[in-house]
């Protein structure tokens, strides 16, 4: 059964989380401690373990499988973790947040995400989902003196708990039907009955679908997203908009394309409708936003829609599309939220679109980086976002989802209009008030520059990563 090898990456991260909690406990008030460094060490450990496990297809306890698919997502999560830690520093200092707890929660959440990406048992997926969700609920509300933050955490918690219940119900039905929660057994039993699916089967699939749709904030289960993203500190928003989405999509793909693949004909209709409405609602409502965070919240909803298209069209052309899109989206969106975190001011949140007026004059580099992130989200070449979208649409055309492809390209045109509103503010509007943007810390700035370079790399020379993505997803189906 492979021993413990498959869980080494998440163990590294969890150990770093425990270590930072202990360190926080021994910290004298006011003493500065490089707790973030512990997280970085843990994540680097996870990265090394991921590289070593690559292509070895190790499994632990029959519940966790370090196949290349899971490892690819683990790699994305390591990048998410490193970038999130890099952009968190300024927020923690400015808001006087408890550093040890902050990093510990982030690391536990990452461990949960990694578990979710590699789990091959529905109950373990649920466990991982709860680990990451609880940590992220607390992170959302970590600014305890801010009513908006608390409100966001509360909303997120209530709706999240609600969706977890759906998910658990789905697992229960699945177990009742097949007598197992292991994906491979569920899959083979489903296949045996797939010719005439019973209402019970459809109910089980439907309930799990609702649970996943909540977590990836797909329409109509997206209501919590703008509020939670707006209330959380920007660095946390960046973290949860990418990490949670990556982990949830990994499990979504694994469950639906392996265990429930026999019922593809049944659920694909529903996912089609969800994907279409997610793309449309995300972009159309995004146009009306005046807050940068809400705008990017709706943008991330829309990107969830493109990911659903990729999931739906996972034919041989599109298999890698989900993974490549997740990587691209993670780097790009974290970059954008990193910029938001850096212009965030103690006495002024700077989170309205109009607050970005004249950023180019004060911080030309920051404004240029933000432009790169936004244009990549909008899907302009030669940025990574273009290749990612192109990959998704290629898969959709090949799988004969022409309607989704047309909706996808048209909504991405609409999305250009709201991404450009921020660009217009930064470059083409001068501010009436004197600028109030804080100085950029070195590490955070460096992380953003690295993200931007990565975006150009993935946009101009994507072949290697495309091949990895295509090869890794073919390990699970």
């Amino acid at each position, binding site marked *: 059964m492979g021993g413990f090898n498959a869980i080494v990456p998440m163990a590294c991260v969890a150990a770093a989380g425990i270590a930072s909690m202990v360190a926080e406990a021994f910290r004298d008030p006011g003493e500065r401690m490089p707790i973030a460094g512990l997280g970085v060490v843990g994540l680097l450990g996870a990265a090394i373990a991921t590289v070593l496990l690559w292509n070895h297809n190790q499994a632990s306890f029959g519940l966790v499988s370090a196949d290349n698919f899971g490892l690819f997502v683990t790699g994305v999560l390591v990048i998410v973790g490193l970038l999130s830690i890099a952009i968190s520093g300024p927020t923690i200092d400015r808001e006087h947040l408890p550093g040890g707890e902050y990093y510990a929660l982030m690391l536990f959440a990452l461990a949960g995400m990694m578990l979710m990406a590699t789990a091959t048992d529905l109950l373990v997926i649920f466990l991982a989902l709860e680990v990451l969700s609880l940590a992220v609920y607390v992170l959302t509300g970590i600014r305890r003196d801010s009513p908006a933050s608390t409100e966001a955490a509360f909303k997120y918690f209530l709706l999240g708990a609600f969706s977890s219940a759906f998910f658990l119900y789905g697992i229960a039905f699945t177990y009742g039907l097949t007598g197992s929660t292991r994906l491979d057994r569920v899959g083979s039993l489903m296949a045996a009955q797939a010719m005439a699916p019973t209402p019970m089967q459809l109910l089980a699939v439907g309930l799990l679908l609702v649970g996943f749709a909540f977590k990836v904030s797909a329409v109509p289960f997206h209501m919590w997203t703008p509020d939670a993203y707006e209330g959380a500190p920007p660095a946390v928003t960046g973290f949860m908009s990418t990490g949670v989405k990556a982990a949830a999509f990994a499990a979504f793909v694994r469950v639906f394309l392996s265990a429930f693949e026999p019922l593809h004909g049944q659920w694909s209709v529903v996912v089609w409708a969800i994907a279409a409405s997610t793309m449309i609602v995300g972009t159309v409502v995004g146009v009306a936003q005046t807050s940068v965070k809400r705008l990017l919240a709706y943008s991330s909803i829309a990107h969830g829609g493109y990911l659903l298209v990729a999931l739906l069209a996972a034919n041989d052309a599109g298999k890698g599309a989900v993974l490549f899109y997740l990587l691209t989206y993670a780097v790009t969106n974290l970059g954008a939220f990193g910029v938001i975190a850096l212009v965030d001011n103690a006495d002024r949140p700077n989170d309205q679109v109009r607050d970005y007026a004249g950023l180019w004059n004060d911080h030309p580099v920051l404004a240029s980086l933000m432009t790169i992130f936004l244009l990549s989200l909008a899907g302009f070449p*030669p940025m990574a976002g273009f290749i990612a979208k192109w990959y998704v649409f290629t898969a959709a*055309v*090949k799988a004969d989802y*022409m309607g989704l492809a047309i909706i996808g390209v048209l909504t991405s045109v609409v999305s*250009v209009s709201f991404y450009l509103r921020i660009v*217009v503010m930064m470059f083409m509007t001068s501010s009436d008030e004197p600028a109030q943007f804080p100085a950029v810390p070195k590490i955070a700035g460096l992380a953003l520059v690295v993200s931007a370079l990565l975006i150009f790399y993935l946009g101009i020379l994507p072949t290697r990563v495309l*091949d990895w993505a295509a090869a890794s997803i073919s390990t699970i189906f």
Partner: protein
Amino acid sequence: MHFPILTSLVFLPVAGALLLLVVRDEPEHEGLVKNIALGVSGLVFAETLLLWSRFDPASADFQFIERHAWMPAFGVSYFVGVDGISLLLLVLTGFLTPLALLGSWASVHKKTKAFCMFVLLLESAMMGVFVSLDLFLFYVFWDAMLVPMYFLIGIWGHERRIYASIKFILYTMAGSVLMLLAILGLAYLHSTTAGSYSFDLLKIAELQVPPHLQFWFFLAFALAFAIKVPLFPFHTWLPDAHVEAPTAGSVILAGVLLKMGTYGLLRFAFPLFPEAALFFAPYLAGLAVIGIIYGALVAMVQPDMKKLVAYSSVSHMGFVVLGIAAMNTQGVEGAVYQMLNHGISTGGLFLIVGMLSDRRHTRLISEFGGLKNVMPHLVAAFLLMTLSSIGLPGLNGFVGEFLILLGVFRWDPRMAALAATGVILSATYMLWMFQRVNYGPVTNEKNTGLADLRPREWAIVVPIIAVIVLMGVLPNLFLRPIGPSVERLVTHMHQSASARVQAAR
């Protein structure tokens, strides 16, 4: 392994932009920044001339081909080459970019470094569009070109620049994303017949695209290109973008960007979908004729010189589309020739209007009058460009319009008759504008002390006039490399269409 001249054409401007990145953005470096940009674009122009001199004008094939795998799993390759249709467009791009930079010398003082970087990046993307022989690569450059143009209009433009820049980018994108889907559809079609994905133009051209798909694919391609040209009724972004853009933006927009639309029709939409193209050609021609007359009539009543020139573009580009729609040798040769003419004369007119507005900070015709008495040299240059634009025999515009009308007449005399009224109308609005601005007494005393051409402006005006005269007097020099490629395109169109008709019987 010979020198990869096309790659260097595409990426030399990018290298120049990266070089500018290391120059510190301070006022005392402004001259340095501008000189670097000018030097790089001048070098690119020299390279385009070198390319022309080594081009074999007798061959209809693609030359200077470079092909490298880019994303082999998807059949995407870096595949570039030129033929007679694209060669002179490259030269035109190389010619106009340094002039556009020179034309902004006096008017751009804000963020000069970024301005020069965007102009160079734009040049790269334009070169890329004209050399790409891989549909994916073409689309990448086609889309990438929007971003620098967007910034040029949005940052350095006039009062309504933000509206104009967003309108520009959204209009163009809305058209081009459907083309992207059509491109994906073609690649998929290639994979079903040949077993693997390919975006290679030469391989796609061999595909037998079923008629009903041709219909949709052609519409998707033609929409993208029609918006770019712009063909009536997709032209509404153009007056806004032209008027609000800074001089360099207008020059490049009118001079090169609009040509991408007609180039796209010639390179992709027509040869890839011959049957659909011949089916839709009369409709395209109809829209073109409407555009010719409508553009001319609207131009006539414009109070703003820049807007007048912008609407004249709608009218003149209509001729180009009309020539393409005729799909015979004269029509298409004339269309290619007219693309060059329009780039040079309209680019020149925008540069002249820029010089006037640098001096007076207005472009309203009513603000001027009697300029001939104040600055005779500038007005002389203005006159030559105006005459070139209306197609006076002996200057470049005549050759293109004549060939187009000849070709169209052979195809459909009614269209030719209607289009010919556009020639008359263009003489009316251009000369009327010219008369109001330059002749008569000096009515506005602000105009009395205006300086005549400065040395930098001489450097802009002289090459343009030289080319205008050269193209009018020695058209064969330019038509020679165009001929074989056009000939082959026309033959290909009619052969594949008639072959299909016979197969259907």
